[in-house]
């Protein structure tokens, strides 16, 4: 009897004590993950669109929620990370209003046409994010879409009055503490305990995405004279970048610096093939007849007169054949012979067409936006005005080999600066360039798939072909966590990138 009662009492005790299941090592208990020598209590991220969570050519709430700093902050919470605030947009449409007038497009979504054809389209709807009525910070996410390195230290970059003239940025104007504030000062005033800085992409990217219509300003150290699509002088970059790191690192336990990826890794430049023009033999022959005089008389004459080299003449030859063809294009790095041809008696229109004409080659990158132009008629009433065949593709649609080398020279200089400053300041360094190259060349395997840079289907890039998807940002965050764990001896867990979304499907 006594035994039985003891057994009963014993069993009851076991039951009550261990009613809730508890792990031997619960992950949600303090101390399971370690911040190492870093302190994540106040994490501030500074940068451009990539930091803001920009995707599908817009900034919108769900994109911001999947920004790499927000993903990182979520993981930092395992080791002492605090709240992470972001200047969330008003809606998931993404467009911007300035005094009620729309000044930025809505986001892109993947739409399916009646014939089953898939294409990115603008999501319809009236955006509600008014720049002059922005939220009040401070914000842990200081990613300003469109910002270049020197913009972060430029007073007035958040002055709403300068948006239309191009001296200010609407995204910063929305949240700037004053019209004369700077992004870096607003960020540094929060005394970050840990920071991330990813800036410099736009110092080359806008040049690249615009097909090189801007100017390489290497050698010009006055950024106030730069146009929007220019390449920033590497010394300017080094100078402002170092100021920015100093400001953020002043009271921080550490931080992470991220370098600039190679533009040729992104689908904006890799989706449209250089040989984009299909022609049958008859058409190719007819077009070649049109260019026979240019190839056989104009070019040799120009060489004979010493105006162009034989090498340039060879590059300028136009020759179509049956099958896939390179389009003809205007290359502003060629000698402009328009006036010479006019003087030779050519009609001005023909002379202008031939002025900087050549056919594309395998070194050229045709940009994503060219796909809506290539093969269409420049003049709707003239079936002979096919763009790429009879009318050259404009400069803005092609990043030529020469233009690419300007971009890669400048970005190599920026990246050397970033890596040098990281190591000089004992900061974590993320080689985003290598990480993205891995996505572009063969892809990155994850639980449930492979992340590649194929446009729309690869999972890494959103519909603008430049910015990552949430899954792409999650991959980026994991790469950063690796670097942070290594630098600060921390054990921050990574995220399952297969749980993050890719492009958004929607029919208007």
């Amino acid at each position: 009897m006594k035994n039985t009662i003891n057994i009963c009492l014993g069993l009851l005790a076991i039951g009550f004590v261990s009613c809730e299941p508890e792990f031997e090592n619960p992950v949600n208990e303090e101390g399971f993950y370690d911040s190492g020598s870093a302190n994540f209590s106040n994490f501030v991220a500074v940068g451009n669109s990539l930091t803001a969570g920009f995707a599908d050519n817009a900034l919108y709430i769900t994109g911001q929620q999947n920004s790499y700093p927000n993903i990182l902050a979520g993981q930092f919470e395992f080791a002492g990370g605090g709240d992470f605030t972001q200047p969330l947009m008003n809606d998931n449409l993404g467009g911007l209003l300035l005094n009620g007038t729309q000044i930025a497009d809505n986001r892109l979504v993947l739409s399916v046409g009646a014939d089953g054809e898939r294409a990115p389209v603008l999501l319809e709807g009236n955006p509600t994010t008014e720049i002059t009525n922005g939220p009040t910070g401070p914000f842990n996410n200081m990613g300003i879409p469109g910002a270049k390195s020197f913009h972060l230290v430029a007073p007035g970059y958040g002055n709403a009055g300068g948006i239309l003239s191009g001296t200010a940025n609407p995204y910063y104007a929305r949240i700037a503490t004053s019209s004369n504030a700077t992004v870096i000062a607003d960020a540094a005033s929060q005394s970050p305990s840990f920071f991330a800085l990813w800036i410099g992409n736009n110092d080359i990217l806008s040049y690249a995405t615009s097909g090189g219509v801007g100017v390489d300003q290497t050698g010009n150290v006055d950024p106030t004279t730069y146009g929007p699509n220019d390449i920033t002088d590497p010394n300017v970059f080094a100078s402002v970048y170092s100021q920015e790191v100093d400001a953020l690192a002043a009271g921080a336990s550490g931080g992470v610096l991220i370098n600039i990826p190679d533009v040729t890794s992104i689908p904006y430049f890799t989706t449209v093939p250089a040989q984009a023009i299909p022609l049958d033999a008859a058409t190719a022959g007819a077009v070649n007849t049109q260019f026979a005089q240019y190839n056989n008389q104009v070019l040799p004459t120009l060489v004979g007169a010493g105006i162009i080299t034989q090498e340039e003449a060879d590059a300028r030859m136009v020759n179509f054949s049956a099958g896939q063809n390179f389009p003809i294009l205007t290359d502003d790095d060629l000698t402009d012979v328009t006036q010479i041809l006019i003087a030779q008696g050519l009609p001005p229109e023909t002379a202008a067409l031939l002025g900087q004409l050549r056919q594309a080659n395998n070194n050229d990158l045709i940009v994503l936006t060219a796909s809506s132009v290539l093969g269409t008629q420049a003049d709707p009433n003239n079936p002979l005005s096919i763009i790429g065949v009879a009318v050259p593709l404009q400069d803005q649609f092609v990043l030529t080999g020469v233009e690419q080398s300007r971009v890669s020279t400048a970005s190599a200089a920026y990246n050397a600066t970033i890596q040098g400053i990281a190591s000089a300041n004992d900061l974590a360094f993320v080689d985003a360039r290598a990480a993205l190259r891995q996505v572009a060349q063969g892809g990155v395997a994850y639980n449930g798939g492979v992340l590649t840079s194929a446009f729309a289907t690869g999972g890494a890039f959103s519909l603008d072909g430049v910015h990552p998807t949430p899954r792409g940002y999650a991959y980026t965050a994991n790469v950063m966590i690796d670097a942070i764990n290594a630098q600060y001896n921390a054990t921050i867990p990574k995220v399952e990138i297969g749980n993050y979304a890719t492009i958004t499907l929607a029919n208007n």
Partner: protein
Amino acid sequence: MKKVVLLAVFALATAVTYAGGYRVSLQGQKALAMGHTGVAVVNSAESVFFNPAGLVYLENKLSISAGVSGVFSTVAYQNEALGTYAETDNPVSTPLYFYASYQATDWLALGLGVYTPYGSTVEYEDDWAGSHLVNNIDLQAIFIQPSVSLKVNDKFSVGGGPIYVTGSVNFNRNLTRSLTDLEGNRSEVTIDASGVTNWGWTAGFMFNPTDNLRIGANYRSEIILEAEEGDADFQNVPNSPLTPFVDTQFDASLPMPAELTVGLSYEFCEKWTFAFDYNRAFWDVYESLSIDFANPQVPDSENLRNYKNSSSYRFGLQYDVTEMFTLRAGYYFDETPVRDGYFAPETPRNDSSGYTAGLTVNVGKHFQIDASFLYLHFKEVDASYDYHFDQGVRAPFSGTYKSSAFVPGLGVSYKL
């Protein structure tokens, strides 16, 4: 003797620990208190469930038992590499039973049972790490079983009857690991079917070689609940021909496997009874949870389960303290039917140990109050479900699970 038996029980308890699928063994407070043994026990109308052959040996003209249990269960999940953690917030479920036995003649007893041997209520937080496998599930099945019990002689009897089952299922999961609508709400589906019915049967025998020893066997047939034209409700689905998920009907089937139980009970030292049951559940019938949507545009859902047959070993002890009190205790280990790599979070059952205790209080001559208590303990286990496919690519879901259930129960018995 008594010490030997106790030692035997607890030595086994520490040696192996073992439960199964969505089987819920709570079919009588008296039997439950003795480790849910009963195939060779004769002491109440609970035998309608455990072995109808024993009904004819009940001493009373009329025996009625009814009761209810409160299941407080929790499942915890974590993944150390990802820092993910989830804990179920299961509502308290209350499985019921009602049994009646009527001694028609010296050799014939009639019985009726209503009980709920299958059920599963698992509720994770929406959009948790495994939400593409399950957000929540509520499975219920009520068994109604008329029975006859025939005494062949004082040593041998047979019994059995048809079983009518009516059940329902409600199941919600996200469509994929990442699909959302424009506002970021995860796309999900809820399937719901109720009033699903089918028939089965049970039969058993009891053999009493001596006054003290009983041997019993009972078989319950497999019953497959075929849900037809249930409702499938898709929510937060993007407006795109690429995601053709529209509300439709579905067919699915869920098996309640056959089980065979053999066992013995032995009375000793006048006041003690020891019982042992060996139970084999034929889970191999549960190959997959396949949901066949009526709309051909909606891709069918195939979720491999590939269960294996499993055993449970049950030990019980009863002690008649006084005329008024009877104490009981027991232990069982319940082997999981889930194979490695098929550990799906909707029935996160690994091997479990059930510790049971209880008592009966006699209130007057006709009336008894039966109380029981079960603590079901599952070992912490690292497990994965390897058969989820994300756009055709295998995407295992793995982590560490730990679950427990705390089940107090109360019943009444009436004898005339």
